[in-house]
């Protein structure tokens, strides 16, 4: 037996013992998702038990170094862990922008103090992070941001407004892009971290077409940010931001993957239109649409695996996250269009118990943001054209 086989056997046994049965069922609503943070109250004891067990192993962030709360696993071991979790349909113990976005940036650009402080708290789910990037006049043209950070010696005085700040009202800390030099567009930006409880920070949820408010407007009025909270050099925050955006795109692209455990699209279609005497979906055009969609969805599943493997091995093109983001989000929009078509009038119910509070229609509307947030599909296509295909300007 190789070391990896031994690791697999041990991991399987550990998961069997430590993953509560309730945590092996598909996520049914936002309440089932664990985001951690100071405001977090577990919806069930099992949710907390699962988070604690995984965090104690460092397996909320299996490939981070142990010194920062990670599991210290190799890429191959991380893949085995992921496969074994998928095999028992184990839920993600912790969803976190700290893990998927800030963490990788801190690992690359943070000081030792910043890593020891922030990464360990992220790994344990103690601090929930939000991202302060977009502004009312800096969306796709992100480098045009205006939020200012004035040098006051040991600290910056931050003033301005951010928008589309995901879960800002539920977050404890923010990683934020601020302007420290007005004379250079990309070269005048710094990357800072601060507590959302700091005096001068206010947030206001934005009501969306889904009826939910996952995004906020965030206002900064003379917020004091200690300079030790700046990541990397002053005026070089764009380097950190770009690196982090790659990881954000990687995370969002995961939305193109079907969730584990059953296939809601197929199950939903069967429940609504039924099967004919040959065991085929009774609506042949809907069946054909779903089947051709599934080809792309499954192929994208393989692409995601390839992308992660190449990323870990340093073989992925630096702009490849743009391709993943583009394809994954367009795919997810397609999935939800089909979910709505398959669901018929059931899928139109907005608040009913039957529809779990309108879970499908609200999610369908939410997916429309996928190809806008984190850089629009058109921005991703520009990046692929210029940086991968090297087409002329």
């Amino acid at each position: 037996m190789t070391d990896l086989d031994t690791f697999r056997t041990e991991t399987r046994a550990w998961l069997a013992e430590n993953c509560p049965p309730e945590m092996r069922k598909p996520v049914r609503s936002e309440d089932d998702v664990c985001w951690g943070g100071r405001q977090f109250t577990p919806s069930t004891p099992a949710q907390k038990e699962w988070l604690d067990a995984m965090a104690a192993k460092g397996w909320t962030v299996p490939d981070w170094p142990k010194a920062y709360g990670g599991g210290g696993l190799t890429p191959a071991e991380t893949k085995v862990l992921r496969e074994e979790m998928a095999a028992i349909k184990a839920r993600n113990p912790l969803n976190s922008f700290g893990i998927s976005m800030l963490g990788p940036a801190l690992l690359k650009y943070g000081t030792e103090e910043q890593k020891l402080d922030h990464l360990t708290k992220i790994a344990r789910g103690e601090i929930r992070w939000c991202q302060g990037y977009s502004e009312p006049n800096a969306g796709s043209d992100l480098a045009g941001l205006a939020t200012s950070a004035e040098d006051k010696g040991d600290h910056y005085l931050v003033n301005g407004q951010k928008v589309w700040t995901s879960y800002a009202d539920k977050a404890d800390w923010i990683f934020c892009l601020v302007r420290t030099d007005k004379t250079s567009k990309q070269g005048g930006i710094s990357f800072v971290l601060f507590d959302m409880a700091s005096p001068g920070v206010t947030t206001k949820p934005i009501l969306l077409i889904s009826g939910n408010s996952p995004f906020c407007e965030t206002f900064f009025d003379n917020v004091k940010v200690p300079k030790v909270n700046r990541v990397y050099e002053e005026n070089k925050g764009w380097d950190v931001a770009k690196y982090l955006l790659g990881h954000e795109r990687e995370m969002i692209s995961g939305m193109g993957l079907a969730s584990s455990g059953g296939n809601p699209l197929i199950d939903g279609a069967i429940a609504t239109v039924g099967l004919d005497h040959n065991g085929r979906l009774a609506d042949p055009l809907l069946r054909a649409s779903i089947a051709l969609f599934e080809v792309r969805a499954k192929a994208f599943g393989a692409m995601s695996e390839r992308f992660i493997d190449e990323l870990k091995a340093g073989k992925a093109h630096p702009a490849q996250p743009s391709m993943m983001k583009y394809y994954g989000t367009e795919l997810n929009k397609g999935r939800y269009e089909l979910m709505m078509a398959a669901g018929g009038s059931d899928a139109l119910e907005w608040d009913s118990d039957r529809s779990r509070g309108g879970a499908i229609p609200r999610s369908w509307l939410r997916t429309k943001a996928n190809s806008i947030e984190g850089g629009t599909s058109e921005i991703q296509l520009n990046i692929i054209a210029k940086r991968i295909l090297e087409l002329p300007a």
Partner: protein
Amino acid sequence: MPLYLDDDQTVLQDTIRDFVAEHAPVSHMRALRDADDATGFSRDLWKQFAEMGFTGILIGEDQGGLGLGHVEAGVVLEEIGRNLSPSPFLSTAVAAVAALKGTGQAERWFPGIIAGETIAALAIDEGAKHRDIVAMTAERSGNGFKLTGAKRFVTHGHTADLIIVAARTGGSADDTDGITLFAVPKDAAGLTANAERLADSSLAARLEFDGVAVDADAVIGEVDAGRTPLDRLLRAGRTGASAELLGVGGGAMDMTIGYMKERKQFGTLIGSFQALQHRAAHLYSEMEVARAAVLKAQQLLDQGSERADEAVSVAKAMTALATTLSVQEGIQMHGGIGMTDEYDIGFYMKRARVLAEMFGDANFHADRLAVAAGY
């Protein structure tokens, strides 16, 4: 196993890429077509393939082959696709070898295949669309069987030395079981082959079996249990065709992107137009996703995984969709020159269409996935 080529596979890729580009570029195919060549491929080139060992790529080292897998066979096929090289590699070294492997027929046919002397053809389709239907009958007669029926879309069927035939020894046409696979030599009495030139200028035969007598030892595997070697053949053939499609789609895309960087209209390079950049970037995305699907199928096949069959259908359907887009965009973005026989891009469209049809098109494989998923 990570989902990218390892170092050995990358070395093989470099070797085969140079070899095919030098010895069998698109001009090689064009020359065969212009000469109205009746064989459909170059026997000399096939001999060179044999000398390099590629004819025995999937055959075990103990039997004189290279003992490699479907990933490596796919590396070869992708370059064949990229250069539109006419070759019996897919039918002979991949699909036929997969069918014969582990059966009593292996010893008889493998040495000829390895030596580059034996060309194999696959007589499995009976209708104009690939379906899971075998109507041809194999009646017991004396010590052996008599084959009666017709097959079509048999690539190299008129020149092959060995024809692998799926026939029915029990049940009715659309039954899964009751099939027996036979290894039929080309000179069998009562067998006629009529070759037709296809749109891509390759040759495929319609075969008529008029009570063709074969010995009992022509059976591949077991009587009535031909489903097993036939499934091996189909999985290998579908995966191989996917890899070749990847080469065709990738070759067309590379030509198109190259053209976008040199062709000027309105005084500027057409590659600078955002309308075209976005379509090129979308095409790139589709091809990358298809590439991942193919490698996944190859790896699962090499591992003997039970998930291989699904991955094979995903790969065949996805490569057909992505490559179809690639050749369509290729012609459109080339403009008028793309419609001329003189320019190569049109050949890519023709070859893509033939390969998309081979072993089941995208709809066939999407349907298979749906049935397997219970809807």
